[in-house]
Every structure is written in C-alpha cells, then in structure tokens.
C-alpha cells in the first residue's frame, strides 16, 4: 500500500462508514454495531463478531430532515441521535445483528427506552435488535462489582449472537492487539505527520474498519514527512462526527492539533491492562477512560495523546446546540488555561451559522503565527 492509496482508502471509509460492516454482514459475518466510545470492542471481537461504531450521518452525506424521529424525539436532543433514530425508524439499520447502546450518557439511555416504545408503534417495526450496556462510570467499589457483572453478561449475550462465548484467553488476545493498535496510533499522532482533519478521519476509521487495515494505514502515514503548522489549537467539547469545525478552522490557516471529543484521537489515549483479569481490565479502562458525557474526570484539552503539552496557542470550546453538560466546565477551564498562557473561545453550534463562522474567523486572526515546526515539536 502506498500513502496515496492509504489516503484513498481513508477517504472512502470516511464517506461511507458503514460500507465495510454491510459487506461483512453480506458475507455472513455477525456484525455488532455500537454507539459512543465506551463499549469494549475487545469483547465484541473476542466473540467473533465484527464491531463497528455508528454515526448519525456519514460525513458529506446529508440525510436531510429527521421527520420521523421528530414525531417522538424532542428537538433539543443530540443531532446524531435524532439522525440515528430517524434511520432506525426507516429500517436503515435493521440488518445489524445487535446494536449496543451504552448508558454512558442520558441521551443514549433515553434512546434505548425510546426504541422500546417505538417498537409498539406501526412506524417502529423495523428497528434493529438492541442491547443496553449498563456500564456505570462512578468510582464506587460497588459500581466496579456491578460493571464486571454487566460485562460478563454482555459477553454471554455476544456468545448467543455468534455462537462463541468470549473466554479469558480470547479476550486477553484482543486486549493486547487493541492496545498495540492504540499505541501505534498514538505514536503517529505525536509525530506531527497528520493534519487535524487527517487525524479525525483516521481516528474514525479505527472505529468502523478492520483493525488490520487501521494498522496498515497508520504504517503508511508514518512514512510521511512531518507537517509544519503556522497556527495550532486544541478542540474541546461536543462530539464531532464530521469535519465541519476542522474545515472551518483550516480555512483560516488553523490546524486542530488535538481534541477531546469522542470521535477524536483521545479515544485511543488509554490502554486496558494486561496484568488484570481481562473483564476487570476492560471494566477499569472503559469506566475511567471511556470518553462520554458521564465520564468523571475529563482530560485536559491542551495535552497530546501522550499526556504531554502540545505546541498550541489556544483551545476552542465547541458546544452543540442545547448542550447541558460540557459547558459547565468552561469558566474554570478558561481560567486554568490563562495561567498557562493559552487563549480560549466558546463556539456554539451549528458550525455553519454566520455567528459561529465569524467567531472562528475573528479568533483565527488573533492567533500568533509560529515560525515553523509541527504541533508536537
């Protein structure tokens, strides 16, 4: 594979994130879809199923109105959930063998119950089979015990789907392989060889494409030259399924060097331990480090995936419309960032709005221009 063909493969997956999973299903493989960044893919893979994470819409693909979901779902809900629910009502996701919904945000939990209700209606007859993964993110010892049972039950459910109950050895192998891929991706992210948009695409690639291909692409991008950036910032806040925010900054010469949302590089920041019982290792990894709205300790947005400061000059906080959670931390974060000489700005969605575009333009103009080097130098 060449770098050029790697780019083509990356773009193809970006435009059609369900393509591979659909092909797998057509070829007879059991396909387990999941939402959010807190579902242990290691368990799914250990059962022999193909894990892939769903988006509300494919980047660049306008799914248009959410007419069906709007009849049952409040307009203040997360855009990607409204889109997903609309697609479920239309039967677009009926083919998935099992859709795993973690309860690591209230929006996801409410979606699970709404799907249940929709099944009782005429318009809800083509819903996929869903599974609620009731993973708690509190640090209580009784939460840990509860979660381990939850993950064991999940493994059994996967076994029912695939006919292969994930055993300790299989889970351990998957943990090791997943960790190795995460490490490779982290190394690439800190090498300065990716633009923000490429990193976002590659990060998403790892969520819905085969691990072997993910590793191969990482390998190809490692052969590239480091990219000098003149203006670099970090992005914090709401999830970004597409590159609209990245594109808006790039149009003003600003690269997003790191992000903390749950489609970005931070998904790969932490490994699961190979020292513990595999269920315990997965429980700890996803409870503590699973990026979600319920996560207790959020990462510092200015740090790279290696935990070291990046060469950025500012942090942009983007909160989607009706955000009720992430914005609480902004005033304290602003103060903390000022202490380390980093500017910050709050951007409100939608990114295409005139106000948001102007705010990005004005903010970009204020940022200092670097003499050279990558965002990680």
């Amino acid at each position: 594979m060449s770098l050029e063909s790697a780019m083509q493969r990356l773009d193809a997956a970006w435009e059609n994130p369900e393509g591979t999973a659909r092909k797998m299903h057509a070829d007879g493989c059991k396909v387990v879809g999941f939402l959010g960044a807190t579902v242990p893919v290691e368990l799914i893979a250990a059962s022999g199923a193909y894990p892939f994470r769903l988006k509300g819409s494919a980047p660049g693909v306008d799914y248009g109105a959410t007419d069906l979901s709007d009849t049952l779902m409040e307009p203040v809900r997360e855009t990607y959930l409204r889109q997903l629910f609309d697609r479920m009502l239309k039967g677009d996701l009926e083919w998935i063998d099992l859709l795993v919904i973690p309860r690591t945000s209230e929006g996801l939990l409410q979606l699970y119950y709404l799907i249940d209700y929709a099944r009782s209606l005429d318009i809800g007859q083509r819903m996929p089979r869903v599974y609620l993964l009731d993973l708690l993110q509190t640090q209580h010892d009784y939460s840990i015990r509860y979660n381990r049972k939850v993950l064991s039950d999940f493994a059994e459910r996967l076994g029912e789907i695939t006919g292969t109950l994930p055993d300790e050895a299989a889970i351990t192998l998957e943990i090791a392989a997943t960790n190795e891929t995460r490490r490779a991706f982290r190394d690439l992210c800190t090498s300065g060889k990716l633009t923000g948009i490429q990193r976002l695409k590659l990060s998403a690639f790892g969520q819905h494409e085969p691990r072997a291909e993910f590793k191969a692409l990482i390998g190809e991008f490692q052969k590239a030259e480091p990219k000098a950036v003149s203006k670099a910032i970090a992005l914090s806040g709401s999830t970004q399924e597409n590159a609209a925010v990245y594109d808006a900054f790039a149009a003003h010469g600003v690269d997003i060097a790191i992000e903390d949302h749950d489609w970005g590089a931070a998904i790969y920041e932490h490994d699961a331990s190979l020292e513990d019982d595999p269920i315990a290792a997965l429980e700890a990894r996803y409870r503590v480090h699973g990026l979600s709205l319920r996560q207790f300790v959020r990462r510092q947005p200015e740090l790279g995936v290696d935990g070291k400061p990046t060469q950025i000059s500012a942090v942009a906080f983007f909160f989607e419309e009706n955000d009720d959670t992430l914005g609480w931390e902004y005033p304290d974060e602003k103060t903390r960032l000022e202490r380390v000489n980093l500017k910050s700005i709050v951007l409100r969605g939608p990114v295409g709005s005139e106000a948001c575009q102007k705010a990005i333009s004005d903010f970009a103009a204020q940022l200092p221009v670097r003499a050279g080097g990558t965002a990680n130098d």
Partner: protein
Amino acid sequence: MTDMVFQSVADEPLATTALAKEKQKNWFKDFRTRSMEQGEPYVIAAAVSPHEIFHTMDVPVVTNTWYSSIISAKRQSPYYFDLMEKLGFHGDLPRYLSLPMMTTLDNDPERAPYGGLPKPALILDRLRGDYAQRISTKWAAAFDTETFFLDVPAQKKLIPNWWELAQCDWETLYESHRLDYQVEQIKALIEVAERTCGRRFDMDHFEGEMHRINQAGENVARARDAIASAEKCPVSLPDQLTNVMAATWNRGSQWSVDHTAAYAGEIEARVANKQAICPGEKTRLLWLNTGLWFNTGFYRAFEESHNATFVWSMYSNYFSDGYRKYFDGDPLRALAARSISMNEQLHLPPWMAGWILKQAEEFRASGAVMLTPIGDRLSSYGTRACIDMLERAGLPVLELSASMVDARLWDNDAMIARVGDFIDQRVKA
C-alpha cells in the same frame, strides 16, 4: 342547575395550606438557627435522593429544587441567570438545578432568599442526567465541602402500570440487581453521612420513619380519591402543591402524618359540603411535567373565563403512589426501592404516560397542558413520546415551551391565550 348547589371556595385556601406554609417558614427559621447560628451540620440534597437517612439522624436537608423554586417564587431568577451568563456559563445550560449554586457563587447574603445557604456538611446528588455531577462538584468546591453521588443502574424492563406494583411488589418492579446495588450504595451513604455530620444512624428510628411515610402516603391517597371523585374540584392546584410538598419535604415526621390527615379531612369535608373552587366547572385539566414555580396563579386563570380547573399535577399524589413502600424485611431495601426509579416513573414515556392516563381517567380530566422546559434538556426527555402516547389514547395535550424558573421567558398573556384556545378548540367539556 348544578352550579347553584355548590358553594364557591374560589378565594378560600385550605386552612392546612396556611399551616403548611407556616411549617416551612418555621422549618427554615429552625434550620437557620441550628445551622447558621449554632453551626450544626446540614445537607443539600437532590429531590430524588434518600433524605430519610438524614431525617433519621436529625440532620436538616435542604432540597436544591426547593431552594430553586424559592428563588424563582421571589422573582430573583433573572438576576442569577444574568450572573450565570456573566460568569461564562452559556445560555443552554440547565437553569432549574443551577439557580441555588448561583447564590453561592454570587456570595451576596443581602440578595439571596433567606440570606443564602451556609456551608453544608455534604452535597448529595443523584446522577439522573449527565450534568448533576458537574454542578454539584462546582458547588461543593465553592463551599469547600464534600459530595456524594448516587449512581443508578438502568431499568431493563419497564413493566406497565408501575403504580400497581410500586407499593407492595417493588422487588419485582424495580429489578433485584438494581436494588442490590442501591442497598450497597445507601449503606455507603450512611457511612459518609455519619462521618460528615458527626451523628449516628439509628436503624430502629429509621424503621419508624419508613412506616410514618407510608401512613402519610395513605392520607395523600385519601385526598387524591376525594378530589378525583368530587363532582366539582374542591381544592386548587396551588393548595395541593403547598400541602403535599410540605409533607414530602418533612416526610417521616409525625407532623407529616398529622398534616396529611388534616389535609385529606379538610378536602373530604369540602366535598361533603359541596364546596368547589369553580362551581361552574365544566372542564378538568391536568398539568404535566414540572411546575410553573414563579407563577402558580396560572393554574387558576381559566376558572372564570372557561369554567376549567387544573385538578392534578404529578405533585398531587406521587407521595401516595410513588413514595409508599410497604415492607416486612429490610427497611433499607424499601428505601432503595423508593429512591431508585423516581425520575423514571415521572419522566420516562411509558411509565409517565401510563400514570397520567390513569389520573386522567380517575380525575375525569379531558385535556392536559404539558410544560416542556426551555434550557433544560434533561427535563424535556420523554415529553414528545409521552404526548404521542396520550394523544393516541385520546387525551388532547397542549405543549407549552417555557422555563420552569425563568420569568424573563414567560409571556403570561400569550400563554393564557394559548391555553384558552386549546380549551375552546380541543378539549371536550
């Protein structure tokens, strides 16, 4: 013809309403004396958390939503919302649960209701959404105090007609694995409560509290039955709220048992004496979702103009239907059952809508008005599916989008016109 037989008590609140207000006023005076002047510990807690632990230890509990409603009722919410924006919190962040914290961040006792809240021994919150932990953590930091977060495993199956199982067969309803978790959590909470408050938890005393809550719930059920079966509504919704909520905040006390008995008795007497708040009543309405705290008079705005009364809101009888938990064994498990699914029962569409339909039938209501909160995603969850279920079942629903606490966003004339039109056009008398 019927109108002539009924005596109007439109302008006569229940005698127990004044007593309930007096109780709350005295409670707050006592709280201030003990906690502010004498330095006794107290706790700030979410409404849907097990206050019973602290009641048993004689530790005052201030409910954050209660204080929020007080701020709102005193029409001070606009000041604190402006402050919120000045401090850098964006405008979509939820307001209902954040108002009390703003009084602490403002640190102006002259302005805050009752002089503001002193430093608590503990802030107790339940993670019913995603932001409770963020508000409470920030609030606790401002006070330099401790937090305890109650987590809640998700209900796997929503058994229909929850109210039929909630009082006696709660083990089946709420799922044993969830109750196991919750009991462990409550035990951990007791340890933290004992440490932070410096008091001992007495199980015998607690068991007595639990029985008294069931007794008070029975009295609220009596009141519910009297209102529902009355030919004309004998008591206004604001009166219902004042009495039942005072008993709820003071649950477990002998006062709450006696007060609810007097409340039920007074309503029953009104029914027997053919007294009604709107003798010409032709239409009964339900108020859905949370209350309109800064303007409870709104509930009564349609009695003269449309002969329509609001007869019910979820506060009318959740105390009887949701709080009562009869038990033979471990009272902690009964407490776990009470607090584990409060929010789900009140806000999760199948449970919420099922209960509302039951009330509509029993209270003979022919329409409902639902407050869909602005600026509070959590409180909006489930409203659209609930409306869908109610409409499918034949109960017309008017959705009003408004803030529960922000008077700045409320256009009273426009809202009265909307409800009036709704009654005229969609609600059958």
